């Protein structure tokens, strides 16, 4: 099965402005031997047909192969995060999985998802849809730890209702070919949306984050903050587009991408982008690219800390800012003790 060969799919192209520099070719042209929808090992979850028209055609890939969507409804506060661990083993297989998470009014909840694999030349095509209702507070963390010659296409559609909070943190640890496609259309007032990411890549890892946020209602906040530390031949794309429409008075829209390149061959294409149609707002966007501060390295070494350790300490400090942004203590603990070997 080749994605390029599916007739009803209109796949995005590398030259499309929205996806410029995202190298889809390898994923779309790969001939997978099998396709498979895998289900959650949770009893009693409702399954519906996914009839929503999403913002871009990347969501249609999963839908075209299996348009059923599992519904996870959270009706009351949950004291501990729900952990969903995904592990694929079969080689040469295109896996699909679609989940909608509904967080009901006034509910506080958190979820961690981990994506790992022991497969070769396989792909995850994941659709996620978050519906966060009035006054709900939802925190979500995703760990991607997929190894070389495997793919993850992660599509996330967020729908926030009035006065809701949604905080998402993505950790990209694996060496695979990764595309995160994250869309939040803020149609309701007073929503708080925070999207953080740490892309820690090495070898030939290829990670793209394509993020679209649209402010259509008053007094909402979107805060997008990504850090990349790229080693070896790794490559990353950060494309964040935030649109503030005329009705979205008093919006706060922020985008930030920081990158540390740890080798001469690593590269980043970072494009934060704001489209603003009003004056009554706060907004900023920025992108930095550099290496570790040699003055700081020297200072640590001058107290007897060897170069490799000093390097590691500074890198941890840089990356640590993303960990510190997490609110849920249990998610933080999970991440601090996370090791790939425990999940494969």
């Amino acid at each position, binding site marked *: 099965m080749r994605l390029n060969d599916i007739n009803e799919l209109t796949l995005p192209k590398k030259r499309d402005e929205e996806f410029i520099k995202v190298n889809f070719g390898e994923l779309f042209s790969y001939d997978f031997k099998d396709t498979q929808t895998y289900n959650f090992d949770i009893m009693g979850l409702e399954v519906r047909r996914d009839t929503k028209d999403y913002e871009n055609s990347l969501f249609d890939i999963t839908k075209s192969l299996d348009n059923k969507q599992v519904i996870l409804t959270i009706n009351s506060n949950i004291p501990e995060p729900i952990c969903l661990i995904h592990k694929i083993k079969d080689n040469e297989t295109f896996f699909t999985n679609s989940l909608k998470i509904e967080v009901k009014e006034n509910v506080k909840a958190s979820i961690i998802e981990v994506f790992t694999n022991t497969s070769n030349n396989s792909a995850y095509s994941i659709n996620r849809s978050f519906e966060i209702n009035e006054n709900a507070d939802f925190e979500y963390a995703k760990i991607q730890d997929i190894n070389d010659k495997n793919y993850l296409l992660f599509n996330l559609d967020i729908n926030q209702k009035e006065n809701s909070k949604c905080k998402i943190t993505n950790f990209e640890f694996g060496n695979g070919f990764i595309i995160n496609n994250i869309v939040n259309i803020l149609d309701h007032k007073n929503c708080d949306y925070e999207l953080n990411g740490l892309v820690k890549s090495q070898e030939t890892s290829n990670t793209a984050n394509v993020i679209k946020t649209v402010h259509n209602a008053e007094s909402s906040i979107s805060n997008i903050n990504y850090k990349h530390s790229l080693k070896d031949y790794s490559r990353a794309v950060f494309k964040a587009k935030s649109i503030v429409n005329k009705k979205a008075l008093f919006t706060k829209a922020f985008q930030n991408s920081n990158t540390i390149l740890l080798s001469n061959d690593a590269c980043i294409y970072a494009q934060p982008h704001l489209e603003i149609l009003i004056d009554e707002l706060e907004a900023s966007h920025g992108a930095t690219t550099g290496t570790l501060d040699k003055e700081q390295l*020297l200072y640590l*070494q001058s*107290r*007897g*800390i060897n170069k490799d*350790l000093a390097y590691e300490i*500074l890198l941890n400090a840089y990356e640590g800012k993303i960990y510190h942004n997490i609110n849920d203590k249990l998610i933080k603990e999970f991440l601090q003790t996370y090791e790939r070997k425990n999940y494969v």
Partner: protein
Amino acid sequence: MLEVKDLKVSINDKEILKGLNLNIKEGEVHALMGINGAGKSTLVKTLSAHYDCVVTDGSITYKKKNLLELDVAQRANEGIFMSFQNPIEVPGVNNSYFLKTAINEKRAYAGLNEIDTMDFLKLIKEQTSKYNLDKKLLQRDLNEGFSGGEKKRNELIQLLLLNPDLIMLDEIDSGLDVDAIKTVANVVNAMLDGKKSVLMITHYDRLLELIKPDFVHILNDGKIVKTGDYSLALELDKKGYEGIGIKDETK
């Protein structure tokens, strides 16, 4: 302990030290004075292997080893400590964690076991309370948001806990109030046990009053041009560089 012979050092292809000789024996206190741009900071930076400094000629022997063959961390673990003129801020690195790591690196270099956390905390409490240094600095990130005085006090805490053999103070008195200078002097004087040596750069007599040097060197245009005892510093304070026959070669 330290023997510098005919040392020539360039920064950005400009020769700063032009054949400097200096000999520091165990237990000696040396003060280095000189007009701005004479090469004082370049000397201590070279001794601690700063990446800016390129040694083009000469030799440095420290504890009978060729210092130029050791990297920055090895020099520190051999007992060389340089107090920075303006210590850099390192956000995200906890000061206490940094200090414990540095102590353990030094211990590992000497073939000793890591310091136990309780022993580390005890050591901090003992040393900071002895000199009235605020140990709350250790709860913060390394130098982040520290005032000039706090940065210097933090250097003193590191100095006390790392317990080096050659203490190099690069204008540690700049920007400090009278009480803070007294604290610096108390710490350094208490560390002087007849084995440790000090090389301090200063422009002012105030620090030298409190830490009495055995030798005062005047550096000019990359060379030591005059050496004397503490009375040379007093004479300099009274007459100025021109008054003691030092011509500013940078003009």
